[in-house]
C-alpha cells in the first residue's frame, strides 16, 4: 500500500484490522491513542447513524485548523489541509481488468501489424492502404479500451 504515501498532503497513516489491531503505522506519534479514538468514534458514529435512521457509518473525517484526519475502510490518513485532495481521500478509481487486457492486446497487435506491414515484406500480398489503416483502427480501439478501463469510479467506502 505504498500508494497511500503518495496521496496529496499525506502526513501519516494507520491501518487497523476488523478487531481494531494495528496492521500498519507510519509517522503517527501515538498510534494506540489514535486507534482508541477511532474505535470510539466508529462506535459512536454507528449509534448516531441508527438514531437518525441509517444503517451504519461508512467513514468520517475530523478537521483541524492545519491538519485533518480521515478514516474509511480501516484506514486512517492524516493530511495537510492545504495540500490534500479530498476527492482522492474519499474515493478511488478501480480498473476494469478485461478492458485493460483487451486494450493492451489490441495495441500490441496494431504495433506488430504496423511493423510487419510497413517495414517487412510479410504482407506484400495485401495492398498498401489496408496495411496502414487496419493497424490504425486497432490502435484507436485499443486506446479507447485503455481509457475506458479507468472509468469505473468506486467509492473508497465500499
Amino acid at each position, binding site marked *: 500500500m505504498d500508494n497511500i504515501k503518495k496521496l496529496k498532503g499525506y*502526513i501519516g497513516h494507520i491501518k487497523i484490522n476488523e478487531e481494531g489491531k494495528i496492521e500498519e503505522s507510519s509517522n503517527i*506519534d*501515538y498510534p494506540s*491513542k*489514535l486507534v482508541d*479514538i477511532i474505535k*470510539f*468514534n466508529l462506535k*459512536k*458514529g454507528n449509534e*448516531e*447513524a441508527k*438514531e*437518525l*435512521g*441509517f*444503517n*451504519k*457509518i*461508512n*467513514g*468520517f*473525517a*475530523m*478537521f*483541524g*485548523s*492545519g*491538519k*485533518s*484526519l480521515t478514516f*474509511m475502510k480501516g484506514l486512517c490518513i*492524516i493530511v495537510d*489541509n492545504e495540500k490534500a*485532495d*479530498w*476527492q*482522492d*481521500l*474519499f*474515493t478511488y478509481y478501480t480498473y476494469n481488468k478485461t478492458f485493460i487486457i483487451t486494450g493492451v492486446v489490441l495495441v500490441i497487435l496494431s504495433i506488430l501489424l504496423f511493423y510487419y506491414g510497413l517495414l517487412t515484406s510479410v504482407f506484400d500480398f495485401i495492398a498498401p492502404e489496408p496495411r496502414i489503416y487496419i493497424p490504425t483502427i486497432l490502435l484507436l480501439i485499443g486506446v479507447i479500451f485503455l481509457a475506458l478501463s479507468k472509468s469505473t469510479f468506486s*467509492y473508497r*467506502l465500499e
Partner: protein
Amino acid sequence: MLDNIPGIIAIFRFREGKLTKIQGQDILIDLDKLSNIIMENMRIGENEAKELKFLESFRGFAMILDDMGVVFVDDYLVITNAKKTNWDLLIKAILKGEVIRSG
C-alpha cells in the same frame, strides 16, 4: 460558494442549538436529533483534538452515513450525496468559509 458543486442536498446554519435551512431540498432526518448529535460530536471532537494535538484547533467533522455525507464546519452543516459530490471542491470551500455568498 457551493453553487457549482455537485451532489449537495441541503445547507443549514447552526445557531443557538438549532438548525435552520439556508438552501436545498427537505431532508428526511429529525433535525432535533441531528442538532444534538452535532453538538455532542463537536464536544467529543474538541476533546479528542486536545489529546491528539495535531488536530488543534478543531474546526469540524464529516460523517458518511450510508450514502449520505454530513459535513459540519464553522456552524454550517452541508448534507450531500456522498457518491455524487466532489469532496475536494466541497471540503476546500467549507474550510475556506465559503459556504454561502453572504456568510
